[in-house]
């Protein structure tokens, strides 16, 4: 059936609410407004205000309340409008959600799911546009998901809710309108493995393109164009930023001998840095070229369209990096 990323997310929420009465959605404008990105539109009418719970603008308060509700046996899904706003809830996410299981010696699980948008590209300026999921992936105790496909938008939520530990889901704002085909009976998907979405066809020069979330569409486009130039690509969608499925990455790099990491986060201290480090630690002798990275320019994301676009990873920059990798590899 034809659907969109937004509708797939909504279907996942509806499904989770129907399956388990402990599940509820809480966040700013999730109810009467219908969700700031219209993900929860109509769910208030279907499930009522107890389970589609509008909150005041108090990220730390309602994220903490979600953590408390999880401790109390519920299965809260907490929506934060954007990753920038989640910084107001960092204390609760990092000092409580991520630590309580460990500090309590295994006594207290925090089965909360926290959803938020991330990323740039819509001319919203610096305070609505950053990609900080890599920061969260730094934190032990959290599981970090970045659904990039319709199947993952539909399928990751229920699996996340089954996880006894806190899960953060990052939804790139540019993906909500992506439309495509999804099986009528599409449901839960695993959240442990990266996905090899495209495999090099054995042409002379090959390279692994590694990405996640909002940059996947442009990486796939770059892969198509590179094929026209005789460069074969593996495309790995990380799907989960923590814990990282390095097996899938390393298997691919062992075949292609080159890697380009595409990450909308800033280069310094990013998840792309972690991935490049792991490849060099674990697959150094498989490499025919240095690992390339395509990241955002190290500036707060600007408003003006031409400046914003210049700051972000693009098809052209991905292609250039792939060509460099191949050229450097001989």
């Amino acid at each position: 059936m034809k659907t969109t990323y937004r509708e797939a997310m909504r279907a996942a929420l509806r499904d989770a609410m129907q399956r388990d009465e402990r599940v509820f959605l809480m966040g700013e404008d999730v109810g009467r407004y219908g969700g700031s990105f219209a993900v929860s539109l109509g769910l208030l009418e279907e499930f009522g205000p107890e389970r589609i719970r509008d909150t005041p603008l108090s990220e730390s308060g309602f994220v903490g309340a979600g953590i408390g509700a999880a401790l109390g046996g519920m299965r809260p899904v907490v929506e934060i409008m954007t990753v920038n706003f989640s910084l107001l809830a960092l204390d609760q996410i990092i000092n409580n959600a991520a630590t309580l299981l460990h500090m309590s010696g295994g006594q207290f699980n925090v089965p909360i799911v926290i959803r938020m948008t991330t990323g740039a590209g819509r001319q919203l300026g610096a305070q609505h546009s950053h990609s900080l999921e890599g920061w969260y992936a730094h934190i032990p105790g959290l599981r970090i998901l970045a659904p990039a496909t319709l199947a993952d938008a539909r399928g990751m939520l229920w699996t996340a809710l089954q996880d006894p530990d806190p899960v953060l889901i990052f939804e790139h704002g540019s993906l909500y309108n992506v439309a495509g085909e999804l099986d009528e009976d599409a449901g839960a998907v695993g959240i442990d493995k990266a996905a090899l979405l495209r495999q090099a066809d054995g042409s002379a020069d090959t390279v692994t393109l590694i990405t996640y979330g909002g940059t996947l569409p442009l990486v796939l486009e770059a892969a198509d164009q590179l094929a026209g130039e005789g460069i074969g690509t593996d495309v790995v969608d990380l799907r989960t930023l923590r814990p990282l499925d390095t097996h899938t990455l390393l298997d691919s790099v062992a075949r292609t001998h080159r890697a380009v990491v595409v990450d909308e986060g800033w280069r310094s201290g990013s998840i792309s840095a972690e991935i490049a480090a792991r490849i060099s630690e674990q697959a150094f002798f498989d490499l025919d070229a240095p690992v390339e990275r395509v990241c955002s320019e190290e500036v707060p994301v600007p408003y003006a369209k031409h400046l914003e676009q210049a700051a972000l990873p693009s098809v052209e920059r991905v292609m250039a990096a792939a060509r460099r990798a191949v050229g450097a590899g001989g």
Partner: protein
Amino acid sequence: MTTLRNQGVPDAGHAMHLLRQMLRVRRLEEKCIELYSAAKIRGFLHVYIGEEAVAAGVMETLAPEDAVVATYREHGHALLRGVSAGAILAEMYGHAEGCCRGRGGSMHLFDAATRFYGGNAIVAGGLPLAVGLALADRMAGRQQVTVCFFGEGAVAEGEFHESMNLAALWQLPVLFCCENNLYAMGTALGRSESQTDIALKAAAYEIPAWAVDGMDVLAVEEAARRAVDAVRSGGGPHFLELRTYRFRAHSMFDPELYREKSEVAQWMERDPISLLQGAMQAAGQLPDDEWADLQADVDAEISTAVGFAENGTPEPVSELARFVYSDRADDGSDGGTAGSGEGSRKGGAAG
């Protein structure tokens, strides 16, 4: 204001119980200081000496299925909620027998069996958790109460205000207990708050709030019972400001440059244990031999607990990576380089 609640001591048996509870906390912490000085326990150690009437009075009003959230000055809350002195001390020793298997320490005591949710070292960080625990009870239709202890320093944090607003907005079954000991570490209340009447702040959120003499265990118990009953019967959140004082420094590292010794001495005249003890003696409810027996009992409990902790076993380093994620079947992800520990989800050794 040196007497215990106006009408004196009502019931000898109950008064004796409260006296015992306060004395247990006092002796446990005196022992903690001793063990700290002997370098048996480390980290930060914040004792509650002087504030025992608060935990003793409030805990008395709770049912086993209620939930308690506390701060980093929580040994007394844990003990009076039912965590054994042995498990508390073993935790400070970093032993496997500790209530958190050595991962929490003095500031992070937790106990699932008694629904004791810490042990939070981020000031005000426990308040949203308490709101959420109460929300879960409300949504599940359980007649339970969540009690949240926090210091007056927490009222300067945004999380305090966010939590008051949410609890009142949603009429959640939570009792906020502000332990106002007048100092946020070394900063006096008047140096950090434009409005020092804390009960008034709660009242601004339409939460019924009272200020209570926190040195008078009977007054604390009476106020807490009234509040807990109201919360349990659907009256929404309630708030107690318990006016108390810590006789010791903020922590073992605090040279106490910020307050006069005379001020401390003045408050020590209202030592909650001495107050109750004196009132009971005046009422003929505490014969010398019973007082001696009580002290001997408590000393024996603490002594046994020290032995338990002392003879405990260090949590093995091979268990280091446990409890970062829940134990479950291997998910196939290696989580990184050997030895990083991340992704070790089977509960075994890192790598």
